[in-house]
Each structure stands twice: as structure tokens, then as C-alpha cells.
């Protein structure tokens, strides 16, 4: 397998400024890992552990303080600005909150069209592509002229996925893509992401605080804690032989729906 992304000794320090954070924050501390083509690298960690910071640093939306990122053989640290536009289309990112990712003043058609115009598509090509994309993510084409507020959270996330796909990416970072969605909607989006991955031979970095979800879909798992990657390895390995105590702690969470730990209380006649 060919490595599509390699992160070497990545560190991110936010300088201490302002009132809330008076001291510099080391959000990422010497992180290294690689993602092979076609993999789903699941990154799990609690709030504040550095997941979003890592996602942003990988794509240079926020430059790392130290360390290197390679996309294939290309070192992203040294990519000149004029090459980023093309690169960005190959490497997409999807965030947690579908509400802030779409421009409320643009119809679905306009949202999707923008990128396609940049790619130099003709009017006809654009219409055909949009029709195909919406079909792929399960949004009826007759809703193409509607605005974001007319869609539910799950539908918005589908539109955002369509927009990311329209750039023909090879690699997508998904930062908690279903955390803001209702439980009954999440499975549909996850199924969609799995189908698209297969169809377009995509590679994902899938970020979540939910270990059950990460355990379900990842081929490789990384565990982030306080800015450090405390464990990384093949999913089966990490799940069956966790090395770090923190990974074990997460795996043994009695509040996980699938926990094997006996629930604290069982039904007795008196409790009903």
C-alpha cells in the first residue's frame, strides 16, 4: 500500500495571548503517523485533546509550529502558495457543524456551482455534475434551488458532502461529521460516506470522540490525549490489544452502549 499522507513530529503551539489563555498552549506535541491509500484513519480523543487542531494543521489551514506533512511524496511545508488551490481540491475537509459550513444566502445549486466554475466546467457540465452529485448523496434534484434553512441538519451534511465530492478529492478529513446530528440520522450519513469511499476510492481521516463509531469504521486508529498521540496502530490490534492505559480506559467505558460491563442496575419488580 502506498502512503497518501505522512505526518512527522508535528507540534502546534498557540502563543499565549488575550485574557482566556494567558500561557502558550501546546495543542499538539510531536505527532507522527501515516495513512495509506484507501484507509480510514480513525482519530479518537476527548474534547480539547487537539483533534480539530490536528485536522487544520495537516491541511495547513493553520500552519504547524514544527514538523512536516507529506502528501504522497510532496512536502506540504514547502508548497508555494499558487499550488495550494489545486491541492486543496484534492484534500477536502468536512466539519462538525453543517449549519456554519453553507452560505445561507446561496441556493444548493449556487453552493455547488462555485467550485465547478473554478474547475472550468461549462453550464451543461455543471448541471449534469450537480444532478449526479445530489443523486449520489440522496438529495432530490428538484430541491436544488432551495436554501440551506429549508433543509434538516442531516440533509445539509449531505449537501456539504456533495460539495466536497464535486472537487474530485482523493483524501477527505472528516472532523466529527455526525456529532451534531440526531442518532436516527447518523447511520444514514455513515453509510453514505462508506459507499462513496468505495465508489471513488477515497482515503479518510475520520475524527470523533465516540470510540464505538471509530471502532466500527476505522482500518487504523489513533488515540489523542492532551495533544499527544498515545496510541496508533491497526484497528484490530488497538481494539484487541490496547497498549496505553488511556486506550484501555476508553475501551472499558461502562457508559458505552455496547459495554460488556454489567449495567449497574437490573430490573426488579420494585423498581417499576
Amino acid at each position: 500500500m502506498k502512503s497518501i499522507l505522512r505526518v512527522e513530529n508535528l507540534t502546534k503551539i498557540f502563543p499565549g495571548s488575550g485574557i482566556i489563555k494567558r500561557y502558550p498552549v501546546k495543542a499538539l506535541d510531536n505527532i507522527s503517523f501515516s495513512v495509506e491509500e484507501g484507509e480510514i484513519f480513525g482519530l479518537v480523543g476527548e474534547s480539547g485533546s487537539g483533534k480539530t487542531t490536528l485536522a487544520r494543521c495537516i491541511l495547513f489551514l493553520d500552519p504547524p509550529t514544527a514538523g512536516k506533512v507529506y502528501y504522497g511524496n510532496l512536502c506540504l511545508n514547502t508548497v508555494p502558495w499558487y499550488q495550494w488551490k489545486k491541492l486543496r481540491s484534492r484534500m477536502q475537509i468536512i466539519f462538525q457543524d453543517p449549519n456554519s459550513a453553507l452560505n445561507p444566502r446561496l441556493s444548493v445549486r449556487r453552493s455547488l456551482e462555485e467550485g465547478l466554475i473554478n474547475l472550468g466546467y461549462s453550464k451543461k457540465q455543471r448541471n449534469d455534475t450537480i444532478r449526479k452529485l445530489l443523486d449520489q448523496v440522496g438529495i432530490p434534484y428538484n430541491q436544488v434551488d432551495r436554501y440551506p434553512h429549508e433543509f434538516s441538519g442531516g440533509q445539509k451534511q449531505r449537501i456539504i458532502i456533495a460539495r466536497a465530492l464535486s472537487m474530485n478529492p482523493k483524501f477527505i478529513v472528516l472532523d466529527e461529521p455526525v456529532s451534531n446530528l440526531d442518532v436516527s440520522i447518523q447511520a444514514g450519513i455513515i453509510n453514505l460516506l462508506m459507499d462513496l469511499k468505495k465508489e471513488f476510492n477515497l482515503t479518510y481521516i475520520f475524527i470523533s470522540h465516540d470510540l464505538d463509531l471509530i471502532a466500527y469504521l476505522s482500518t487504523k486508529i489513533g488515540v489523542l490525549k492532551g495533544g499527544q498521540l498515545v496510541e496508533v496502530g491497526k484497528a484490530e490490534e488497538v481494539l484487541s490489544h490496547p497498549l496505553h492505559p488511556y486506550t484501555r480506559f476508553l475501551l472499558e467505558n461502562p457508559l458505552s452502549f455496547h459495554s460488556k460491563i454489567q449495567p449497574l442496575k437490573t430490573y426488579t419488580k420494585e423498581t417499576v
Partner: protein
Amino acid sequence: MGSEVLLEIKDLAVEFTAHQRKIPAVRGIDLTILPGQFHALVGESGAGKTVTSLSILRLLPPNVSNLRGSIKFNDHDLLQLSEEVMRNLRGREISMIFQEPAKYLNPSLKAGVQVMEAIRYHMGYSEKAARERVCELFEKVGLSDPELAMDRYPHEFSGGMKQRVMIAMAISCNPSLLIADEPTTSLDVGVQRQIIHLLLDLQRSSNMAILYITHDLGIVRYAADVISIMYAGKIIESAPKDVLFSSPLHPYTRLLLASIPSREKRGTRLQGIPGTVPNPEDLPPGCAFHPRCPLAQQKCKENVPPLVRIEAGHRCACFFPGKEFGSLL
């Protein structure tokens, strides 16, 4: 005590009016809580969980245009009590904790002072006695060094510690019912665990009933005695925990349980539920779940299925409870 009823909600319906539109947020629910019971109310966002809990405390926002039903608490109908009596009950007999404790703590008052005020208001304690009580409470909710914690301001606490302060305040007058509206949703796994254990301890040591509102089925499976599932303003299924998880009857409950990802499901497709959660402003006629239901028949589109008793303690609102999905999926 035993089989005595603590809280009995009958046919509660709450309708709001906003921008000239009617919003039926809660549409006739029945719910019974026994003393000392951990009752989980589960539902997706917008199902009507918070509106239900605010109805119990009589803290509904002013744009309520229609309120129906009764909420009997120790034989008094809360909806009929005067505001003054209600004020004495709130925080004393029934209290509440929320998802964002920061929003409900006064940022400019020391934690100890805030809890002391609540105690003095309800119990008429002297300053000294109230102080001692707060110290005892802080110790009980697991704030290490309670003396020091009392003199801290809310922003000096972490999220989990703020929730502990809220819990201390909520249990300060030994309420017989604690309403907890997603109190651990924004907290980390470890802190979640501690808070759930704290609530279970309190429930047991002082026979306090808990109405726990959440969408997290993991917490429910671990802690609840009885579970009620809410969908589009109605309770669609209610049962003791083990019964609900081992033999769910409503199609929504069954699909929901099957939708949760896990390590065991690696390589298989997740179940999922087609369609979206309906908006209360334009609910489908008949059974509100029918557009998403694999079992829906003509009957479901025209009639609202009532919540009926299937067996002791197990109720379900569906015309075809427990029917096989068969080849429909």
C-alpha cells in the same frame, strides 16, 4: 412507600405560538414516576423532552398558547398551584440540573454563597448552619477541599466541577424528584462516569427519584430503571430497562437500537432510519413516524396509534407492535 406514585403526568399537551404559527411541542403524554425511581426520557432533538420537564417545574416560556392535562405530584396538580406555592416547591421538592451549568450559575457570586442562598431561602437556616450544610454537600458531590471550593467563582471550576456545584445546589433541600436535562452531554467520558455514579448514589442513599433526559442510550442502559421513548411530542414506548432492550416493540425503538455503531458491526452496513425527524410545525397525519416506518399501512396514515399497555409496565403506541420487518428492509 413501595408502589406509591410520586409524579403522574396525564395527557399533557403544550402548544406554542410563534410567528403566527402553532407549534405542538408536546402532544398528550402520560408518564408515571415512582419514589426513588431512575426514569429516563429518551428522544432526539426537538422531541419535546425539555418542554416536558419545564412543564413539571412550571417554567415554560411565555409564548405557550395552549396547555392541557394534569401533572400530579404527591396528589397536587402542579398546573393548578399558585405561583407562590410553586416557588416554594421548586428547588425544595423538585429541582433541576441542566446541560450547561455555566448558564445557571451566577458568575459574580462565589459557589458557596449561591448554594447557601438556596438553602436559606427554602429551609430558613442561619448563615452558620447553611455554611456547614454547603460544606457537607460539596463533600458529598465530590468537590475535594469543600472549604476552598466554597470561596471560588464559577469560572474557576472545570465543566465537571460546575455540574457538581449545580448538583449540590439541586439536592440541598433533599428533593424527592430531581430533573436532569442532559447533564453530562458536554462532558468527557471520565467525568460523565463520575456524575452518573454520583446521581445513582444520591438516588439510593436518599430515595430521590430522577427524571433523566437524554439521547444517549449508553447512559440509559447503565443507569435507568424505566425508559420512556419520545418521538415528535409523544411517548411512543415505555418499559423497564431490561424489557425495553431485550424486547423493544415500536419500530422506531427497534430501528434506533439497531442503528448504533459498534466494534461488532465492523464490515457490515448500519441499519439507519430513512427520512428525517419531523418538524412539529408540520407533522405528518396519523402516526407521526409513518413516513419513515417500514411497517406503515394505510391505517397508520389516517389514525393516531394510542399508547397502550402490552404487558405489565410495557406500553407502546403502534398498530403493529413487534411485527417482523421481514423482507421489507
